[in-house]
């Protein structure tokens, strides 16, 4: 167990490597109840989110989900988010646990003047995720009345799981097919137990935070606090596409983000693989021909590729083929190779 943003979280149940591989090959079960849920409801809920976030949420159809971000006036990322449109006038904004308060207070403040109610509903929801190629097969017999095949990637529907009402969404943070089940806190244990026992024969195992981190890293997904933060705009992170300049109306951060979008070369997020067992960790320096040219943001062994991988911010020009790149690992320069992100893409 580990302390994480004020929550007691399982770092691993047994071996994080085995948990990681189970998610790639069969399925893993995650307790993600620490995630923040902010409810935005009312006739102008979509317009309020259009102003508060960088995405075009009023265009999102009911039953669909969108990956987006909330930025400061200067364009810095306050959090990355998944937003569900539960119904015409009802949105659910999923925030990282450590940022729930900031996201709630920012959305509340930015919704002023709109006919929309913003509430921190984190305490009303538990979140159980089932991820991996076997996830749909395990969930289907327990989700009576829900046609999982009709729930597309980045979509969701209300239904029952193990007899308990839940919002079931085809989203996740592992690079695999899978579902996130948002339920009432008192229903989380029976839902967890039903999925755990229903999935044992298919190879499902409970998976902790450590496996979640290596899974998302292989899938090239950013982690707030590592790849994203108030000193980074979506463009450095290679996620400029989430900023919708053509949406109707004003939004917080537009001016700064427009300037960044049209500015010259900027540092950019790159993938690295390492021909060693040593891990390039958060904060380690990256060198091009011996000169400092960037910083590692995340690093871990990749159970799928069999070598350590990392993401790093590199200065402009450092990512050409004509440089010898290395990471300084506690005083030793270890050669690294530039690798396209993501490191892993599931076959569909």
């Amino acid at each position, binding site marked *: 167990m580990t302390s994480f943003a004020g929550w007691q979280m399982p*770092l*691993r149940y047994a071996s*994080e*490597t085995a948990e990681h591989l189970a998610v790639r090959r069969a399925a893993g079960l995650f307790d993600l109840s620490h995630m923040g849920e902010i409810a935005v409801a009312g006739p102008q809920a979509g317009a309020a989110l259009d102003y508060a976030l960088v995405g075009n949420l009023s265009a999102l159809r009911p039953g669909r989900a969108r990956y987006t971000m909330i930025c400061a006036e200067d364009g810095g990322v306050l959090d990355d988010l998944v937003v569900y449109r539960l119904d015409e006038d009802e949105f659910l904004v999923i925030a990282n646990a450590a940022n729930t308060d900031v996201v709630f207070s920012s959305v509340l403040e930015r919704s002023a003047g709109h006919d929309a109610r913003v509430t921190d509903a984190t305490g009303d929801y538990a979140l159980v995720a089932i991820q991996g190629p076997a996830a749909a097969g395990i969930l289907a017999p327990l989700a009576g009345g829900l046609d999982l095949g009709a729930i597309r990637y980045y979509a969701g529907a209300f239904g029952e799981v193990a007899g308990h009402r839940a919002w079931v969404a085809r989203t996740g943070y592992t690079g695999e097919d899978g579902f996130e089940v948002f339920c009432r806190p008192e229903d989380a244990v029976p839902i967890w137990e039903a999925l755990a026992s229903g999935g044992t024969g298919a190879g499902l195992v409970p998976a902790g935070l*450590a496996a979640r981190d290596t899974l998302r890293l292989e899938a090239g997904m950013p982690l707030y606090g590592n790849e994203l933060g108030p000193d980074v705009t979506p463009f450095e992170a290679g996620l400029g596409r989430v900023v919708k300049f053509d949406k109707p109306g004003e939004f917080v951060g537009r001016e700064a983000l427009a300037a960044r979008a049209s500015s010259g070369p900027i540092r950019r997020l790159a993938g690295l693989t390492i021909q060693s067992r040593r891990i390039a*960790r958060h904060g380690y320096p990256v060198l091009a021909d011996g000169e400092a040219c960037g910083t590692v943001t995340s690093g871990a062994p990749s159970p799928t590729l069999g070598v350590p991988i990392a993401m790093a911010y590199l200065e402009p020009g450092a990512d050409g083929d004509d440089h010898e790149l290395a990471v300084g690992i506690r005083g030793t320069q270890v050669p690294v190779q530039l690798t396209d992100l993501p490191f892993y893409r599931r076959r569909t």
Partner: protein
Amino acid sequence: MSVPADLRYTPEHEWVSIEGTTVSVGITEYAAQQLGDVVYLSLPPAGTSVTSGEPCGEVESVKSVSDLYSPVDGEVIEVNSELEDDPSLVNAEPYTAGWMFRVRVAPDGNGNPALPADLLSAGEYEELTKSAG
């Protein structure tokens, strides 16, 4: 949690096995579980002089890097080369196949190995891990 009775231990969660003046060193099952999956080891090569309580290598797991401390004074005579290819032996078999290095310890006046006085018995080490939670 297994703590073999025939080994001695350090508060840094290492075990030592003493045969004559040769001492084998590894980390305990408790340490291996706390670290998580071990992915890389930096061990002192044969010929290195090591000093008890001083760092002599590193144990790298998925989530962390920890110093490895020598539990005794002496000269490294052998390193477990199996761990180079399969560091996960440290998690799977911490007291047997997961041994890390062997040290030749100088004999004391009676021909016994000169060992630090503060090595723990299995019972003492078990107490220590219990109080650590």
